[in-house]
């Protein structure tokens, strides 16, 4: 169910174009309707929802792949980076409905400490088999395991 775009909602901001891993959300420029996004290659759409989650206007929706998904279903998503939850609504062809909500992150966006913010490692650590933050982050009494070389 590749994506399609509601022309009344899309304002041509291009966020879907930036994010799509398949490079298939593109902008058309029509004199009549202006700058609007659309899926140029539905057969390379993974239905990954990256563009749907990203669109500020909620203009992008999905219609299941034509070769095996009968019509009249709906799967919609809302991803909230303030509350850090993602909410899904499923509507079946026979109108059955279901809803789910899941957490997406436990910390604030942008809060990760980059590797260069940690103390410079020593030469001895550099020459050892240890990776960054090891052995501490292994949290294992054994420390970094090794085996006898054949």
């Amino acid at each position, binding site marked *: 169910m*590749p994506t399609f775009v509601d022309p009344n909602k899309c304002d041509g901001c291009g966020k879907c174009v930036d994010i799509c891993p398949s490079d298939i959300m593109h902008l058309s420029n029509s004199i009549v309707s202006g700058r609007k996004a659309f899926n140029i290659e539905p*057969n390379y759409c*993974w239905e990954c929802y990256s563009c749907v989650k990203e669109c500020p206007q909620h203009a992008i929706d999905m219609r299941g792949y034509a070769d095996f998904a009968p019509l009249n279903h709906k799967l919609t998503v809302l991803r909230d980076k303030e509350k850090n939850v993602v909410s899904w609504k499923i509507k079946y062809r026979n109108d059955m409905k279901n809803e789910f909500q899941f957490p997406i992150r436990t910390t604030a966006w942008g809060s990760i400490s980059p590797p260069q913010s940690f103390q410079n490692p020593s030469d001895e650590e550099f020459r050892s088999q240890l*990776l960054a933050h090891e052995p501490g982050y*292994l949290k294992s009494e054994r420390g970094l*395991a090794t085996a006898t070389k054949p």
Partner: protein
Amino acid sequence: MKTKTVDCDVLVVGGGMAGCGAAYEARYWGRDLKIVVVEKGHIERSGAVAMGLSAINCYMGMRWNENTPEDFVKYTRNDLMGLVREDLVYDIARHVDSTVHMFEEWGLPIIYDEQTKRYKREGRWQILIHGESYKPIVAEAATKAADQVYNRVMITHLLTDAEDSNRIAGAAGIGVRDGALYVFRAKAVIVSAGGATHVFRPRSVGEGAGRTWYSPWSTGSAYALLIGVGAEMTQMENKLVVTRFKDGYGPVGAWFLALKATASNAYGEDYELKYKEEQRALYGNYVDAKPFPTCLRNDAMLREIKAGRSPIFIHTEKVLDTREKEELGHEDFLDMTMSQTIVWASQNIDPKKRPSELQPSEPYIMGSHATCSGAWASGPSDLSSKDYFWGYNRMTTVQGLFGAGDTIGGSAHKFSSGSFTEGRLAGKAAVAYIREKAADRSPSLADGKTESLKEEIFKPMETYRLGKNMITGGTVSPFYLYADQGVVRLEKIMDEYVGGWGSFYMTNEVLLNRGLELLGMLKEDLGQLGAENLHQLQRAWELHHRVMTAEAVLRHTLYRKETRWPGYCYRSDYPGLDDKNWHVFVNSRYDPRTGEWSLFTRPYVQLIGG
């Protein structure tokens, strides 16, 4: 057309799970180095984890004495029918827990078992996560670690040094937005460009062709780039066929392992162990391995399907008895394969009431899952025997060229966490390489290289420009071939001659040789690819990479004269597993100067007894 030249110390090609790990670790050890990531998508949602994941499939749990690296080596060795690089596997296992603990600190929600206060296990090696934002979280760390991330630049070629053709000098590619030729000069390059789909004909057709289980943007760059500069490859015949929910390709791990769902044939009968004695006769005592190897489970299912007792059902309806389980089952798909939810919604399949069909997929080429195709790489100094060690961990046979994740062969079952971990290993090793071998030696490119690259890389646009006025319109032209037309040809050749689903994964020497002939003609036709715009130019180079990958797969399949991984691929002319002659790695090297391939074997060396 503009050329943009970027000089750096470490260049990471592909900002997926492994690439993010590489950038993080290279920065940790190389504070003063210039580290650049180049990514054909956008790092925030690129790669196989674009949708998210609902589990981390590689975690030892050494802090709770759940598993040891030794246990993991035994497991992967059995699952891969006796053939893994135990040094590489062990190395992933001993480090992977620190990666997962780092992810948790960064904000990835890992699910805890309320009783044990430990991570909730999906299976022995897997833990459950709320992983919708797995990739954006990991990408945040990598973006902060790198000096710069170039999004929307597709690498088409690796570059070797003008004075030493077996030493890396950088990479070149297309700026898919600005139309520039990008030339990166680097002292060390880490390729982490993912696996390959659409090499074999997918089961989905028409509009649905994007619904492969592995992502359609996994285009074999990891293999083709390396092969193109003469890096030695291994296990390219070890294609992956995964059993998944039919059409939607919903993963089965959570259902079988955490929810304890069972599978049956059309008539409700359990079939998995039914063929054990027939399998033993062909494949030996690997049938006694616990757990039962993934490829043998596929093999049992295929026997059942051939016997006319499909569809194979997974009985979701027998296990979804609480809301908690229903949430777990649904989140499994909503976090990583929404198409499966859409199959249920569109076909009125309420998983609480009805079973779903299972089906084995088309083959994929991967180094991180239940198979291990990819580059032949050095292991770490403390674990690897002399056959497996040449100076720097995860360095390929080309000096200064490293790999991680799907790129590296011989080490299966890395998955997302292990791929990131392998990126970290390569990142640290690349820093060591630069300090010891490249501190005062800048990479140099041959005179005129930029000009010749420009001509070669942008040729499909020129071919189209010259040819388009010779037809009135449409897509049918004798003067050029579009990339999507070429992909379909490739898929058909591979499906029919190299053991795709259309031939029940079966092939033989005659078929393979005929396939090689047809593939050779496709390779020639790639010289006539046409591209109307930059997007199609990207597709054209993705096809180049897929075809190069396919050729390696075909040649390796031809070379291994036995059936090592039934359920993934069968040689009908050598139907049994032959440990006496073939308990070895099949390796290959393409000579970039002559275009000749050589195939040979490398020994299997056991690290862990038992």
